[in-house]
């Protein structure tokens, strides 16, 4: 191959040809850059569309319609805890012309069936209210809320109306009097799940997610780091460690529902742990996280320059001292990034949780990791499946909460990395 020698090539190709060749190479580079940029813009575009749909659908869920009614706290209904009765009499007093039973039912349906909790709270805070009449803002029913927000028709007589013409008339009258108002939806952020959209909240799911992730972190971080350190720094390189390595890599690709089945078999059936508990959810999610943490941890350990190990060993440090005092601190930012990525993955899982009973309707806010609880993605899934129209916007709101949670975790990862990162 004498042709390949530089002199032969130069003799073979005239300089004009070389210039064209250079131009072609530059053109190829420009094309590649353009394609890369195009891919990034495409991805950003899709992200923007996704966020836009979620936010535009979900934003209205953060407001909730309230109706002001003058409620009389008469001693009788307070003693009998019949706050619903007090609300109904207040409504009937507001519209004295409404007399028949059917009409009154329709009138009462303007307010949520859970509107009485507000009265109960007011009375516990201030028992001296008994016997007085006070204007109270009460939660409107989901249909009224949807109508005020313009999600369902308010045209009287239109077919398929959720609200009757009479209800629309009353609503118009209340609105004209300035007693209908959209307020910030504190219920959505502070209460547990409910079958009434206007009473449904995310707090139970948020607490469940926090419990699960704390358990996941406590279990998977030490285990994952220990495994990574052992395999990378201490383990002999033989067939067994190779086998373990292959298996860990494979575990990272196992569908998560399989881990759910494993959790069902071991934690619930064999160890007899409670169903639907964040403790079990956290343990299952820890299994899902482990391979990610181990793989990221090993990569971070590998990235520590060998000169640091050699210098420490040369100064007489033991291998454990080398790892503990030098290699691990330097690898920590990478390990933490891997951990947060694994946790973010775990945060979005529902499939494995179905197996251990966490896809469930749970009203009470969990007080400990042993109480039954749902998690955020499960709440999204359950709401998305509900027939009530008002759950459509609440589903998007729940997704926004989930994304915020995720964003906070990623921010923590970035901050931790910035704080501990060292360059050489």
């Amino acid at each position, binding site marked *: 191959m004498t042709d390949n020698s530089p002199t032969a090539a130069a003799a073979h190709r005239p300089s004009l040809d070389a210039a064209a060749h250079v131009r072609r190479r530059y053109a190829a580079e420009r094309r590649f850059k353009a394609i890369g940029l195009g891919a990034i813009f495409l991805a950003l575009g899709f992200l923007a569309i996704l966020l836009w749909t979620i936010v535009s659908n979900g934003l209205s869920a953060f407001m909730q319609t309230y109706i002001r009614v003058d409620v009389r706290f008469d001693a009788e209904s307070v003693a009998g805890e019949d706050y619903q009765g007090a609300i109904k009499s207040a409504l009937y007093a507001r519209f004295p012309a409404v007399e028949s039973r059917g009409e009154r039912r329709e009138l009462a349906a303007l307010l949520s069936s859970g509107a009485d909790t507000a009265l109960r709270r007011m009375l516990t805070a201030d028992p001296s209210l008994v016997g007085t009449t006070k204007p109270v803002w009460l939660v409107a029913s989901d249909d009224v809320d949807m109508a005020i927000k313009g999600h369902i028709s308010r045209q009287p007589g239109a077919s398929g109306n959720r609200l009757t013409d009479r209800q629309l008339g009353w609503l118009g009258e209340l609105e004209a009097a300035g007693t209908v108002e959209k307020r910030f939806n504190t219920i959505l952020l502070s209460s547990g799940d409910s079958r009434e959209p206007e009473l449904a909240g995310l707090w139970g799911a948020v607490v469940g997610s926090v419990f699960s992730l704390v358990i996941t972190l406590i279990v998977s971080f030490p285990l994952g780091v220990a495994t990574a350190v052992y395999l990378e720094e201490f383990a002999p390189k033989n067939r067994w460690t190779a086998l373990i390595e292959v298996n860990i890599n494979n575990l990272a690709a196992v569908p998560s529902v399989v881990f759910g089945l494993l959790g069902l078999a071991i934690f619930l059936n064999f160890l007899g742990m409670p169903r639907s508990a964040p403790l079990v959810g956290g343990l299952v999610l820890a299994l899902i996280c482990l391979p990610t943490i181990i793989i990221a941890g090993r990569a971070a350990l590998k990235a520590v320059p060998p000169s640091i190990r050699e210098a420490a060993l040369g100064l007489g440090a033991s291998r454990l001292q080398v790892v503990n005092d030098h290699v691990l601190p330097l690898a920590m930012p990478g390990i933490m990034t891997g951990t947060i990525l694994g946790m973010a993955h775990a945060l979005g899982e529902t499939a494995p949780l179905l197996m251990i009973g966490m896809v469930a309707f749970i*009203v009470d806010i969990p007080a400990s990791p042993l109480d039954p609880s749902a998690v955020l993605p499960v709440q999204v899934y359950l709401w998305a499946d509900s027939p009530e129209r008002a759950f459509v916007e609440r589903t998007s709101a729940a997704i926004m909460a989930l994304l915020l949670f995720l964003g906070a975790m990623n921010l923590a990862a970035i901050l931790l990395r910035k704080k501990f990162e060292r360059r050489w």
Partner: protein
Amino acid sequence: MSKKLAVAAAALATVAFAGAAQARDQIRIVGSSTVYPFTTAVAEQFGKTGKFKTPVVESTGTGGGFKLFCAGIGPDHPDLTNASRAIKKSEVETCGKNGVADIVEMKVGYDGIVLAASKKAKHMDVTRAQLFLALAKEVPQGGKLVPNPYTAWNQIDPKLPAQKIEVLGPPPTSGTRDAFIELVMEVAAESFPELKDLKKTDEKAFKKAYASIREDGGYVEAGENDNLIVQKLDANPNAFGIFGYSFLDQNADKLQGSMVDGVAPTFDAIAAGKYPVSRPLFVYAKKAHVGQIPGIKEYLAEYTSEKAWGKTGYLADKGLIPMPDAERKEWAARVNGLEALKMQ
């Protein structure tokens, strides 16, 4: 190795929390996602009274629910299960084998399965036989079964609209699909003489004939999420969707229900038993758990109260079709007396 460590950690955790699983003061319910909206509504009301904790309701599907329900007696096993069909003999046997002897059956009410389309579409009035011809994988023609040749509704009957057959419906894993096959396809199949003969000679082949839905694009499996079907119908006026009545009820401003055998899917028609595609919904309870887990009897009493499952009760607001008055009374007496189920 990591797995072993995790198991060891889990074992440690159990030791630490030992006994937590033993005492349970909260009712646990599993089962059908169709009954889930009603059972959860009752659970919430029940919890609001403040005497008992709000029951936990899991949505596992009817079959999965029976599996968990029949696994045994004790606080580790659920107390009630939702079902969108009656319990099968084989399931009762499994229950019995695991010591679940006395089961209390409660019929909750009815659920209609509707064929619906966008309001922008033409109104449709089909018979079950026409639906069979539109959706079956193989249809009887000239004395034998041939692959479904129909691509437009008016090829089946000139009175039907001249538009492509496009039906969005649930996948085979869904209880709604099972019920649709039983209530529409099976009934319709018997109206064709070819298939009727087949039933006499070869029961299995008959079952295969009516239970096989076409896979050439006329029927689109749209997933378990009914809200998704609603959105797709709104966007595509040529398509029809199959789903539960409560979704039609909630989206009546966007969708219209098609008439089946001349009856429109309205609350009154389903309640009166006139609409042909409706099925009963059930809840099953373990008698052995009554008295062990607090509140089961009271929960059943709440479920069977008029303010819950009555004509104007809160379950009707959620889309449940109540039983006629006499039937409700009969079931309420049976359930509150904890009468155990007897299989023939």
